[in-house]
């Protein structure tokens, strides 16, 4: 039982080596390469999925960045616009006040001169009217000699008082 028979050794060697050769060439080679192909395909697919995910993440980040950028830009523009508007408003206000002041000053000047002119006219009118009235009064009152003497006396009295 423990003595190996030479015949069986010969058969075992031949048959095993033939089986090994056939299996190695026609079975293990295609199976091992098929397994390898499939495994690398799975590996690649996983890798590709991972890459796609990373890429999407990148795109998303880019979008976010662009949006952020746009938002900042918009804010800046708004701020600027508000500034410009304020400036314009301020300028307009200033200009208006200058113009108004000038107009008021002009008006004042013209009113003053009108007033002066009117006063002068009134004065001359009053003077001429007074003269006329005085002439008329004088003509009336000084028609008699008594009245003339009385007036002269009155004037004299006044002069004396002074």
């Amino acid at each position, binding site marked *: *039982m*423990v*003595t*190996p*028979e*030479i*015949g*069986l*050794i*010969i*058969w*075992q*060697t031949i*048959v*095993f*080596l*033939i*089986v*090994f050769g*056939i*299996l*190695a060439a*026609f*079975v*293990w*080679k*295609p*199976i*091992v390469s*098929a*397994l390898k*192909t*499939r495994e690398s*395909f799975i590996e690649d697919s996983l890798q590709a999925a991972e890459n796609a995910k990373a890429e999407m993440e990148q795109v998303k980040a880019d979008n976010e960045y662009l949006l952020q950028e746009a938002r900042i830009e918009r804010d800046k523009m708004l701020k600027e616009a508000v500034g410009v508007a304020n400036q314009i408003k301020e300028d307009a206000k200033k200009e208006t006040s200058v113009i108004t002041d000038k107009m008021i000053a002009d008006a004042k000047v013209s009113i003053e001169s009108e007033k002066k002119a009117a006063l002068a006219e009134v004065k001359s009118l009053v003077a001429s009217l007074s003269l006329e009235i005085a002439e008329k009064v004088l003509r009336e009152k000084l028609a008699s000699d008594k009245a003339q003497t009385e007036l002269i006396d009155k004037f004299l009295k006044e002069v004396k008082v002074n």
Partner: protein
Amino acid sequence: MRRQPIVMKNNRGIQNPKFLNIRSLIIAVVLLLSTPALALSGDESGEKFNPSDMISHHISDAHSWEIFHGLTIHLPVIVYSGEKGLDVFSSSNFYDEHHNVVPFNGYVMEHEHISLENGEHVLDISITKNVLFLFINSGILLLIFFAVVRGYKRNEGQAPRGIQSFFEPIIIYVRDEIVKPNIGPKYEKYLPFLLTLFFFIWFGNLLGLLPAAANLTGNIAVTLTLAVIVLIITLASGGKYYWSHIFDPLGSSMPWIAKIPLYIILWPIEIIGIFTKPFSLMIRLFANITAGHIIILSIISLTFIAQSIAVGIGATLFATVMNMLELFVALLQAYVFTLLSAMYFGQAVEEHHH
């Protein structure tokens, strides 16, 4: 806090479970199988039923295949001798009509051993029972794996289907758990051989468990051949580091003059070590499979020795359990043989790194 020691104990218990389990299983199987075999191999020379004769008849090679008592297929005898040249004839010629062994054409067969009538030795390359089962095993191997590889061609780039999906995990297991970790980056060169080895041994072990089948992988000539092939591949792929490890294991750790007396002792040990590895492969597979057959046959023999129905029922149940264990051992031994072969190849191709 109180649970801590329990957890720690458990952790220590399951450290390296794979290796421990395999080793303890091997030990258990060997112990279990060797005891009854020893008990029965004594001189149980009963008049009618001799279990040791029956068992040795069952596990030994033969020139005829007795499927059951009464139906025997006589296999061809192929013998070569310098005197008579090559002769091919049926082994039925060695039996007369009363099933007695008789000489034929100048050849005599004694206990399945054929020699010339004058006592001279002949080269016996007959198709014995084991050679027939070697063919059957190889045929099954080729048939199954051609079916498997057809699956890969048909479902290219798709999920495995049918028989392909049964064997694919096993092939991947052998590749990823046995070959790759033990051989390293050069594993691909050895993968076809180790896959063939694994499936040859596994199928052979399973085939041997069938009733009337030959004890192919429990035959020492078969395991010897496999071990020698493993040895040849190991030596052929031995690199510089492998040989320097055998012939100069001390390296530059001491001056050459000091190494001489040590190497007088070390060299024989290292050289014997080259051969003990495949030798252990040969013995392990042979002993495990043969022992499994012996114990099942011994248990069955108990019925005939005791000639009692109760023992018969008990023995049948026990033999069934043993058969299940043997189904596992069939796989385990294929695994162990392949694993150790891969380890030897791994040692041979190892590059220097310390």
